[in-house]
């Protein structure tokens, strides 16, 4: 076993901050050059001016670095912010809360509390057994995966901050209302038997000192973790999106995905349920569809459904929820998402 030499000290915080500042300056400088560079690269290829292929390639070479750079920035920032939160602190804040205000707090905390779906069952049981009301727990569990940094980062990169903020707002609304409705139904008896029996109290975990350096480290870990996992899907999605941009005539999709086709919202939600791990790849495709006449509300409903109603998560939750309760969960959340889709299509003409 070779131990690290005692003289090796961790890099100082000042050095890390200087590095971060330099990285940000570089980021901005490179970002400003992306479009020009993409057009230049494509101009080197023997393509006719204004051809479909030229259009598609310009889109691809501009969007891949743009989206990956913005995603990296958002994921890093979110990783740093999340280091201020933990599931245990969130649970302490939520336990014994009344419904209503509790649902709002839970949905908001769901956005910032570090959460991975492999931790969903311990978290659910830990919340419920510590006296967090069932509906409040659901508000957290709906918001946590739905309003995540990949979704927000990609929406921001592809469609701008207004759409990203709208998604955030409507995502929180769905989580708050769906959790509140489930709470009003008083379905505690529909939990699995063993969950109702757990009477553990809450462990008091001693605070671990967290330095600024640790927080920056957390941001970087989030980047290598998340961007490392989704980058290939993003590139694949942009490639398909580029083909749509270049070759599909404008307004080709207005009839099936446009605002006039009312059934497209529920259809989009249904279609979204079986899609899960490819959420990162689906968004660039969806962005391209928007340019061809699809309605934004329909598209947002589809994204929410892809992320919030996933089969793998239901299989995990089946360990704590009875079939009936899962059906209620899916029904309530799906209704909320469909309402968001309709509302959005009606509001933004």
């Amino acid at each position, binding site marked *: 076993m070779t131990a690290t030499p005692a003289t090796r000290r961790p890099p100082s915080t000042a050095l890390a901050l200087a590095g971060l500042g330099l990285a940000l300056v570089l980021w901005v400088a490179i970002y400003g050059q992306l479009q020009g560079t993409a057009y230049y690269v494509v101009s080197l290829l023997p393509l006719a001016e204004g051809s479909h292929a030229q259009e598609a390639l310009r889109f691809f070479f501009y969007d891949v670095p743009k989206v990956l750079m913005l995603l990296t920035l958002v994921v890093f920032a979110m990783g740093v912010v999340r280091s201020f939160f*933990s599931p245990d602190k969130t649970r302490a804040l939520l336990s014994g809360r009344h419904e209503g205000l509790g649902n709002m707090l839970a949905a908001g905390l769901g956005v910032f509390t570090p959460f991975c779906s492999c*931790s969903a069952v*311990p978290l659910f049981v830990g919340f419920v*057994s510590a006296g967090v009301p069932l509906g409040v727990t659901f508000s957290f569990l709906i918001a946590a995966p739905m309003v995540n940094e990949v979704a927000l980062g990609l929406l921001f990169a592809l469609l701008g901050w207004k759409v990203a903020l709208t998604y955030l707002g409507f995502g929180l609304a769905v989580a708050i209302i769906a959790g509140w409705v489930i709470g009003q139904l008083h379905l505690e008896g529909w939990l699995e038997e063993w*969950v109702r029996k757990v009477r*553990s109290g*809450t462990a008091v*975990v*001693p605070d*671990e000192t967290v330095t600024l350096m640790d927080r920056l480290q957390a941001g970087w870990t989030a980047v290598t973790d998340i961007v490392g996992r989704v980058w290939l899907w993003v590139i694949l999605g942009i490639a398909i999106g580029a083909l749509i941009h270049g070759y599909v005539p404008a307004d080709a999709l207005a009839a099936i995905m446009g605002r006039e086709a009312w059934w497209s919202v529920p259809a989009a939600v249904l279609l979204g349920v079986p899609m899960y791990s490819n959420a990162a790849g689906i968004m660039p495709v969806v962005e391209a569809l928007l340019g061809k006449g699809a309605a934004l509300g329909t598209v947002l409903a589809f994204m929410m459904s892809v992320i919030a109603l996933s089969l793998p998560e239901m299989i995990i939750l089946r360990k704590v929820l009875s079939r009936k309760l899962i059906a209620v969960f899916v029904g309530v959340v799906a209704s909320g998402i469909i309402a968001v889709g309709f509302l959005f299509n009606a509001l933004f003409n």
Partner: protein
Amino acid sequence: MKNVKILGSGCKRCMDTAAMAEAEAEKLGLAIELEKVTDYADIASYGIAATPGVVVDGKVVHAGGLPRPEDMARWLKD
């Protein structure tokens, strides 16, 4: 000999945490009894809300996320 339990359903972070406990114990030259608790009801009985959790001699010292190696070494020592 210290009894160390790693609470977690077998996700990657939980396994990394268990491996870290083993590595740190070896570095310190300590013999530990390492146990992986994977049953959801058993995990819940420790009252934590996030995995992986670390329990040293019956006391919860960590819950949620990969711990830092230096913290793990400290838990094993005192």
